[in-house]
């Protein structure tokens, strides 16, 4: 019996069973194990930020050494461009004032006017093809809250779709990237009455940096090079966020026409991202805070009365 209990493979089997139980418990909604895992962040996050900082400093130093001449030439060109852009800016400022007047007159809605944008830096990326979520530096300490079952769109500096927030923690949040097999979004060709499609991550296309496009019917034609944007169906993503362009279309099976899409955003080269949060959600936070403020004085007065 003692020999069995101290056997390596008995220990392996026992620990494996325990870890399987952890996985099952961790998969339950609201599992306390997720909170336990967050405590690892107090050790892991500072070290990881340090490694990131050291890597970026080394990369910047190397770039400063190697790019000196190129930077000087570029600087000259940029000075010329600044002068040209300043002239353009004054023209656009005038145009902007006219647009504001027209927008009020015709009740034009800006594409993303119902969303507030929160900037965040990319903290960590995928570890391999299955451990493939991304962490960004935006959390509840930044004043952001995510209602249960909700999600926020994540975009790059050019407003191209990157993914969606699936988990919000104290100092960071987890993003499910566009190429992940679990990611699905409704899209449409970016033109008036454009064809509606479904874009999702695919295990076979992920390594090529492509997404799968489905939901096409037999009598619809999807052009190669067509731009796909979010359709707004489902309510998770606002309408009109650019996703990417169609790279190939496969008509070989008329009842299941598929296409591939190359996303505009390349998560591997991004350092900063932006989270789009609807004002309707932000108003909810304000309501919660005002309710809490209302409750607090009465609690204090009760305590005082008790004393």
């Amino acid at each position, binding site marked *: 019996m*003692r*020999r*069995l*209990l*101290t*056997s*390596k*493979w008995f*220990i*392996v089997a026992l*620990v*494996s069973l325990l*870890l*399987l139980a*952890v*996985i099952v418990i*961790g*998969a339950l909604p609201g*599992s306390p*194990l*997720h909170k336990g*895992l967050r405590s*690892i*962040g107090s*050790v*892991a996050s500072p*070290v*990881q930020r340090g*490694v*990131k900082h050291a*890597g970026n400093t080394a990369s910047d130093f190397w770039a400063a050494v190697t790019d000196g001449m190129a930077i000087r030439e570029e600087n000259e060109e940029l000075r010329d461009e600044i002068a040209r852009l300043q002239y353009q800016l004054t023209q656009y400022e005038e145009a902007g004032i006219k647009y504001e007047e027209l927008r009020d007159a015709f009740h034009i809605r800006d594409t993303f006017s119902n969303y507030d944008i929160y900037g965040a830096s990319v*903290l*960590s*990326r*995928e*570890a*391999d*093809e*299955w*451990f*493939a*979520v991304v*962490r960004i530096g935006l959390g509840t300490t930044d004043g952001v809250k995510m209602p249960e*079952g909700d999600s926020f769109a994540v975009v790059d500096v050019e407003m191209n779709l990157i993914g969606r927030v*699936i*988990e919000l923690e104290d100092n960071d949040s*987890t993003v*499910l990237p566009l190429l*992940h*097999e*679990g*990611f699905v979004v409704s899209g449409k060709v970016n033109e008036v009455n454009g064809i509606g499609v479904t874009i*999702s991550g*695919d*295990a*076979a296309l*992920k*390594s*090529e940096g492509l997404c799968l496009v489905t939901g096409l019917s037999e009598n619809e034609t999807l052009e190669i090079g067509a731009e796909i944007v979010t359709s707004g169906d489902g309510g998770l993503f606002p309408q009109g966020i650019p996703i990417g362009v169609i790279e190939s279309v496969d008509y070989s099976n008329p009842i299941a026409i598929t296409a591939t899409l190359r996303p505009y955003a390349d998560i*591997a080269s991004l350092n900063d991202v932006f989270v789009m949060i609807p004002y309707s959600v932000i108003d909810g936070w304000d309501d919660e805070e005002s309710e809490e403020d209302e409750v607090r004085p009465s609690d204090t007065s009760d305590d005082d009365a008790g004393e």
Partner: protein
Amino acid sequence: MDRKVLIRKIIVYALYILLLTSFQVTFPGVISFRGQVADIMFVFVVMTGYFFGFADGAVVGLITGLFRDYFAGPAFIGLDGKTARTVGIGMLVMFLAAAVGSSFFTRRMHRNIPFAFLATAACTLIYKISGHIIAFMWTAATSDRSYGLTVSSLLTESILPQLLLNLLATIPIIFLLRFAGPYRKGINPAADREEIGGNSWLTI
């Protein structure tokens, strides 16, 4: 065990776990090929098991797996159709990698360096093949979509690039563990004596 030896072991392992884990999730593109990235954490755990035995490998594997779960815990489509992040898969994978790494080519080959590459290759193949089988079965159970990868694409897009990258990553990890590792002279004297109970089956 001598206290100094124990302290050195703890410090070196803690440092390597934190630094290698952070490096992999911060700069995955540094060593990448055909969409795959070198799995430094995995190689580190396998090599710890291979060179320093099951006990060291198991502890290092569990802690590395915990960090892997924290940084990049896999997200899966649940039975309810929602995508959620999981806890524990990284720990299980890394623990099993250490157990297998401490069992192959350790006894007959005396944990020599050339066979360390073979241990990495064997563990990577087992991990990738079993990972794809589980992912295929999970996709079939939770979604009406096909897994999409054919056997040839599995080989050319996933398994072989990962194998190549992990073998490359083995070189610096061997140097770290043997020449700046947790034990002086790069040898754990207890590793060969740790034949606990009747575990000699499966040990080559």
